[in-house]
């Protein structure tokens, strides 16, 4: 720290463990994002044969071929294409759709709200189930109720989400007629319709996530419950409620926060099938349709966006970590 006389602020920043932690995570995320960009760029070049020809299919004419090829930049040298792609991606330009010529970025932004609202509703449902179930099960470790929660959650992890969605539609929409079978209403245009339409897909996403999260939360609480300070708290005569709420659950908050973040990111990237089942106009169904139509720029853009969101959420979780955990903040 001899240079701290000259660069006091910077040195203090670097010597602050929390800031150093965040800076390291940020740098790491940037490196991984660069790798993601390279993979996404390569996607269209790994296609055996000519991607433009494949994308055009029966619509092929020499004129259409030449037009699409030069519009997508695929006629330029590969190195030029690579730097061109990275450069435009960084400025938010992800090219145009092979199918309808629409700018990919605009399409993605149109689809994003539907997916984000589904993911948020899903994670809320998951937390509402998993928090009480996981904590309860951990506090009753080894008893029958714990076994029931464990078996149920293991069951939930093993159910295909699309199957659960179809069964929910069969019961609550087709038979009981309580809820619509599919479709989407934007939240701000029609809040009532939005709620009606989001319940079944939200439940489908939420129940699967709840099964996974219950198991993590149970383990997290169990780990804290085995520590010395919980035993001390108990032996000095604190009531079980105080021990549970103030000592056990509070200290399990960090792993719970982590799994919530990871699960949210997983939902954002994993709702493809659920969106198809419920005709939900989000990113997932966009990717699905684009894969079926071999619309490579749309696939590339969507994959890039989802991977970026995934990394971003992980980064935010890490930063919250630094904020919440005094061991990182103050050490």
């Amino acid at each position, binding site marked *: 720290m001899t240079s701290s006389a000259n660069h006091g602020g910077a040195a203090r920043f670097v010597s602050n463990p929390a800031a150093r932690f965040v800076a390291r995570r940020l740098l790491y995320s940037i490196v991984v994002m660069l790798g993601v960009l390279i993979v996404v760029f390569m996607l269209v070049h790994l296609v055996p044969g000519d991607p433009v020809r494949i994308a055009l299919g029966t619509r092929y004419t020499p004129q259409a071929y030449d037009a699409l090829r030069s519009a997508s930049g695929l006629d330029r040298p590969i190195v030029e294409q690579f730097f061109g792609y990275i450069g435009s991606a960084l400025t938010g330009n992800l090219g145009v759709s092979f199918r309808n010529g629409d700018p990919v970025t605009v399409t993605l932004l149109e689809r994003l709200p539907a997916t984000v609202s589904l993911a948020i509703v899903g994670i809320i449902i998951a937390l509402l189930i998993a928090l009480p179930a996981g904590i309860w099960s951990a506090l009753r470790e080894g008893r029958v109720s714990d076994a029931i929660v464990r078996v149920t959650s293991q069951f939930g992890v*093993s159910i295909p989400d699309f199957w659960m969605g179809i069964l929910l539609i069969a019961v609550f929409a087709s038979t009981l007629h309580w809820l619509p079978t599919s479709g989407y209403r934007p939240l701000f245009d029609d809040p009532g319709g939005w709620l009606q339409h989001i319940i079944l897909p939200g439940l489908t996403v939420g129940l699967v996530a709840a099964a996974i999260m219950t198991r993590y939360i149970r383990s997290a609480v169990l780990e804290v419950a085995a520590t010395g300070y919980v035993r001390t708290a108990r032996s000095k005569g604190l009531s079980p409620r105080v021990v549970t709420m103030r000592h056990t659950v509070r200290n399990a908050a960090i792993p719970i926060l982590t799994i919530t973040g990871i699960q949210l990111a997983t939902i954002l990237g994993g709702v493809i099938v659920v969106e198809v089942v419920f005709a939900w106009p989000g990113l997932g169904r966009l990717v699905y349709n684009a894969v079926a139509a071999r619309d490579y720029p749309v696939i590339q853009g969507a994959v890039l966006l989802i991977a970026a969101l995934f990394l971003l959420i992980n980064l935010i979780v890490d930063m919250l970590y630094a904020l919440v955990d005094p061991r990182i903040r103050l050490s």
Partner: protein
Amino acid sequence: MTTRETTGAAEEQSRIAAVRLLAGNPVTVVSAVVLAMVAVVAVTAQWIVPFGINDVDVPNALRPPSGEHWFGTDELGRDVLSRVLVGVQASMRVAVVSVAFAVVVGVTIGVVAGYRGGWLDTVVMRIVDVMFAFPVLLLALAVVAILGPGITTTILAIGIVYTPIFARVARAATLSVRVEPFVQVSRTMGTGHLYMLVRHILPNITGPLIVQTSLSLAFAILSEAALSFLGLGIQPPQPSLGRMIFDSQGFVTLAWWMAVFPGAAIVVAVLAFNLFGDGLRDVLDPKQRTMIEARRRAGADIGGRRRAGADIGGRRRSG
């Protein structure tokens, strides 16, 4: 010579203890029996089906389960049971081959990176991190987008998706074995790298790999079902559980059996692999094992606590 004999005896003893522990857990035993049945179906499906999988019998379409058609018939009068059995076979084939691919490639990468260390390790693990940034199904869809739909693509897609997990598990296990005294001693004795890897490293990292294999088979079945559901996996007329569920959507109120039985078949197989994997972990993870043994001996709850997150296999976050 004597050392080798002692080691052999100790290994043998440890193996017997492991089997006894496995057999002592009723959940693990039941899941093992279910898996054995799934394996039998996977091998013999084409001989045990009561009807031809594509025998159309329109007058008998959409019949509910009966003595003749245990799982009912679909919209073309085809026997649902026969199609489920062959679907299970197809699922298992895809799952086994793709996970085998992931094990071979992933373990090779992970062991070499962990053993060699240095820049190679850094580069390989950063590539693994990048692959972890893509959600499972999305990565599989990207592979399908490149190669076009079909069973070979499905196998390759699932194999590629699960390779990084095995690379990471194998690397972590290798790192912990590499610092063991017997490896150090062997190295000072001038043992060659290949011999060291095959003789010392690989046998000592099989525990976590076996657990991961069981859990990955569960996820592979789910991934194949999802891809086939989307029409990008196993292609008709070959039946697949995922596609059967897709086809059932139009008949869900008329013929519940078309949706319920293929889905139940997936759940049974996946659940069995998950539970079996959990049982294996309890036995193969040395920390878990001492706790279970201590608990059994004490006959009471001594408190075998699990590490947070160690409970669940599958993909973990990067970093």
